[in-house]
């Protein structure tokens, strides 16, 4: 356990020393989301309909960008060898890396998402649920993304391959999250969708550590 906490602390510190990486991802999030008013025209009622979708898709893509190097960087500088030969379970260490990635990427995205939602005229009823879906859904994104990142270590065209692996796995998260916010805006209960969302994240949590550890052991061979 201590090993995992040490790894989380190290990764958060590393991200903190390169704040421009987080800034890049946040800037991508804001810019990608603010592009849509140009594409759709400024009518608030149409914007409002697509707002949740845009927030979620851009959040997903931004998350993906930061996952690209999650394990690849460890392989390239030789750190993976040290992680694999450490006496702590590799499952736990892989999970710790995902947690650190979530803290440094998803958390800032969640914090600024209300701003983006406002830019897109999301109806007032949707904010609370939007935040809830992000809190419940992004762990699943990061975990499935972690599987993709571990699988694509040392692969040719790692980035695009990662997207190809992760996007289909995360589509259900996207669908339930959007459905939940839609329900809230329509005055219905978002609860069933939120439960499914939480269920997906829990499911991801149960399989991701094993899938990541298995792939990383192969990568270290």
């Amino acid at each position: 356990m201590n090993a995992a906490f040490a790894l989380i602390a190290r990764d958060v510190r590393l991200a903190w020393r390169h704040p421009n990486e987080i800034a890049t991802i946040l800037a991508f999030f804001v810019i990608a989301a603010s592009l849509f008013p140009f594409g759709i025209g400024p009518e608030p009622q149409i914007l409002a309909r697509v707002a949740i979708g845009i927030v979620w898709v851009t959040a997903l893509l931004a998350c993906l960008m930061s996952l690209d190097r999650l394990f690849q960087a460890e392989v390239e500088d030789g750190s993976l060898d040290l992680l694999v030969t450490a006496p702590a379970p590799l499952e736990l260490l892989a999970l710790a890396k995902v947690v650190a990635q979530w803290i440094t990427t998803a958390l800032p995205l969640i914090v600024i998402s209300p701003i983006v939602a406002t830019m897109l005229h999301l109806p007032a009823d949707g904010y609370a649920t939007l935040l809830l879906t992000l809190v419940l859904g992004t762990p699943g994104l990061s975990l499935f993304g972690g599987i993709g990142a571990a699988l694509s270590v040392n692969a040719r065209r790692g980035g695009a391959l990662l997207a190809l692996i992760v996007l289909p796995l995360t589509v259900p998260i996207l669908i339930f999250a959007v459905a939940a916010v839609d329900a809230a805006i329509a005055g219905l209960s978002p609860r069933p969708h939120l439960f499914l969302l939480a269920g997906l994240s829990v499911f991801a949590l149960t399989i991701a550590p094993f899938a990541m550890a298995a792939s990383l052991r192969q990568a270290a061979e």
Partner: protein
Amino acid sequence: MIGRASFEAHDLACLRGGRIVFRQLEFRVDAGGLLVLRGANGAGKSSLLRMMAGLIGPAHGALLWNGDDIADDPDAHRARTSYAGHSDALKPALTVAEHLSFHAKLRGQAADKIAAALDAFALTKFADLPARLLSQGQRKRVALARLIAAPAPLWLLDEPTNGLDADSTARLETAIAAHRETGGIVVAATHLDFAGADAVTLTLGERKAA
């Protein structure tokens, strides 16, 4: 500290990329022993060290610690093994001290040997320097200082003197001698002369062995 221990290989074979790198390899080192791996480039020294570290599995045969196959209890084997490979595994933005204390915690140990580790490789004055400012030899010394920061009975060193100056090489030899005195085992691959009392030399890639 470690007591009696033995590390041995029986009929070991290594396959990389579908090709046999070595086979029918045998050796035995006892507590306090030093095994020096020699052989031409590509003979399989690094592969053997990675196998000893549990990073790759043997294609045939087994590695035994105190007579037990290391594959039977990989957790115990990882706890007793410290591996220092070709790469330094340094993060440019982290300081030397941060690297060492992270490594100790990663291996589940208290971060109380950092000062000793810095001292052993004359790194004390670089303790707060980020790794990106270090020279090649200084980086290598940080990688080696990990061995002291998080002690383990079995040291696996892949060309540890690469890039070290004479003074640092002497410090490494001192560290190895001290480790062996407490009953530790050291396996080191090298192309150079390596000082060490009654070291066993294993030369890979010779006709007899292949």
